[in-house]
């Protein structure tokens, strides 16, 4: 990255290649830490909770996330509930039960208080549903034009379930890859409300808290090795990151097995988008050893948020690549999202 001339682009925030580059070359370089590919959704504060619980070491997880979704209200959710779900889902991805959240607001001068009321009420409701208290916060107001309505940051502290043993390093050839339901719903729902693009669609965002889905999986399904929620960059970018971080494995997924709602597929056809690269806010990817896959799938499907769960692929020996076997039986390599997903012109 040539920091003398380069500027931050919108694509630096899409969760794809440029985001990874920014994290590597600016944040990790200056703030320390491991390579970007190996970063988890939440930091694990191993052993720092000593003395906190009886009979052994407590493992805590810490994560933070900022929310800038546009528009603030979209079918199936809003920035307030999303700010709760996004952060508790990052905790759930490391197998952590949320203990407490913080909430910080950046408000643009001129924002209607009624809008703020509605967002914060939704936030409170979402936190109550999860059973996590919002224990501290902050408010800043910037002059008109310096922000777009409101932005929210939430930080979450969680306690990792004793049963959770999740790491990239555990992936082995033969493991199965599951996804807890249809992909691309959130991306299409938000896009359908964008100015200049508004279209009618029955699709609503899948924004939902995932810990209740994850807990029985970790406690009852044998051999769960890795979890991650495929948010920005979608299923493909997330799986590519998992494959690249895990070492000597490839992940091979099958197009026909990936659940995509017909309305999402239709909108993607029209707009030139790929559902595998669209954001999800209420889905979890599960990597589980072969012998545990059926039980894991049964547990997922037993929960309303996992009713459409499916086994979509497997781990094979390889070099960190993600492959898609298409409906036609062709094979192609998938990479991280490059640049924002944009409409085609011909």
């Amino acid at each position, binding site marked *: 990255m040539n920091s003398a001339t380069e500027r931050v682009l919108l694509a630096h925030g899409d969760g794809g290649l440029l985001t990874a580059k920014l994290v590597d070359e600016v944040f990790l370089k200056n703030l320390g830490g491991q390579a970007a590919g190996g970063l988890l959704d939440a930091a694990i504060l191993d052993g720092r909770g000593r003395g906190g619980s009886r009979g052994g070491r407590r493992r805590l997880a810490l994560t933070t996330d900022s929310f800038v979704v546009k528009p603030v209200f979209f079918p199936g959710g809003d920035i307030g509930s999303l700010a709760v779900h996004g952060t508790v889902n990052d905790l759930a991805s490391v197998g952590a039960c949320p203990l407490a959240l913080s909430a910080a607001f950046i408000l643009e001068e001129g924002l209607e208080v009624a809008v703020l009321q509605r967002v914060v009420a939704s936030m409170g409701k979402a936190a109550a549903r999860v059973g996590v208290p919002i224990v501290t916060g902050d408010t800043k107001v910037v002059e008109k034009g310096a922000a777009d309505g409101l932005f929210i940051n939430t930080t979450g502290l969680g306690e990792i379930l004793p049963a959770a043993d999740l790491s990239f390093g555990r992936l082995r050839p033969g493991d199965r890859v599951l996804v807890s339901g249809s992909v691309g719903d959130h991306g299409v729902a938000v896009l359908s409300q964008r100015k200049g693009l508004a279209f009618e669609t029955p699709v609503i965002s899948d924004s939902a808290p995932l810990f209740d889905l994850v807990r029985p999986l970790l406690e009852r399904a044998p051999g769960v090795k890795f979890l991650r929620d495929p948010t920005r960059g979608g299923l493909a970018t997330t799986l590519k990151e998992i494959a690249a971080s895990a070492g000597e494995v490839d992940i091979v997924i099958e197009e026909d097995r990936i659940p995509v709602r017909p309305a999402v597929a239709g909108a993607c056809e029209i707009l030139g988008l790929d559902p595998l690269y669209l954001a999800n806010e209420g889905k979890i990817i599960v990597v589980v050893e072969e012998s545990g896959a059926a039980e894991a799938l049964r547990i997922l499907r037993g929960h309303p948020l996992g009713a459409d769960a499916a086994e979509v692929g497997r781990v094979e020996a390889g070099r960190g690549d993600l492959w898609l076997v298409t409906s036609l*039986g062709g094979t192609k*390599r998938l990479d991280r999202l490059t640049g924002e997903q944009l409409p085609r*012109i011909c």
Partner: protein
Amino acid sequence: MASIVRNFEADFDGAFRRADLAHAILSRLKKRLAPLGRPLRLMEVCGTHTVAISRSGLRSLLAPEVELVSGPGCPVCVTAQGEIDAMLDLAGRPGVTVATFGDMMRVPGSRGSLNDARAAGARVAVVYSAMDAVRMAAETPGEHVVFLGVGFETTAPGTALALEEAARSGIRNFYVYAAHKLVPPALEALLADKNLRLHGFVLPGHVSVVLGRRAYDLVAARGVAAVIGGFEPVDILLAVDRVAAMVMEGRAGVENAYSRAVSEEGNVAAREAISRCFAPADADWRGLGRIPASGLALRGHLSSHDAAGRFGILPAHVPDPPGCSCGAVLRGKMRPTDCALFGGRCCPESPVGPCMVSTEGACSAYYRFERGGEVRE
């Protein structure tokens, strides 16, 4: 938009994606090609074909008997460096909002891309149609809205109707920067090259909906085999199979394997809209150079909506970036991997040449699918 999405869901015919049909055609095709003894080299002219081929994994299924070469049919890829520089110039003018299809955002000019310009403070809005830009102009009367008219015969009618709407409604702050391109003159320029090592062409489906099959009679006169194809996997395979049959039987001509959308005459109303608003003009193509009568200039009665005239943008010929071999790649003379810049200085996140910019570009497709072997061992 709403009705399009609904109709799509209701009417979509899955037959053209059926794997059993695709495999039946594939085996017929491969049997047909056995006597050839070497790969059948075809150019798919249209970028949307390139994407459909990549998306469905057809490239791996057709190998090794058929080698598909991506031609100059990605409108982003062929927009000249000088045109991009003019667009960047426009984006930097005070009081100007540039409205563009999203695909143009990443194309590098000699001083960065529209993405970079937006990051530096320029007003650049992504729109899905030229009419959105007209609406934007109507809603912001104090702002000059410049729509970047790029694309082939497919997008040019939309730009034409937007111009007529702006003229009719007296929306005087709407302008078009005209950089549209025409497909047949580019095909002719390709065919004039004696050293082109191709067996035949798969011709663009959408462009042909407007042009009609008959528009390619000039191509047929050159003695090549070409077939118009649709965009679903079975459509593409049918087109490839028909070119293969023509090549094996030694026939030349232009056939239509997309007759459910493409007629002999094409869409006359769309072509009339183009000719009401535009006159053919010489145009620079990235990688291919200047091609006579291959572009479109606004006609005189619309000159008050011509961004180039209004903002004093002079056409400038800017050479392609040094070292970039996109010209040879677009002519099918070089594989992307043989370019010295490929995968090093030129990659999808920091493209040098146009073929690496768009997901429809040949280099980008090679980068993603062929580096380290396309087919998994």
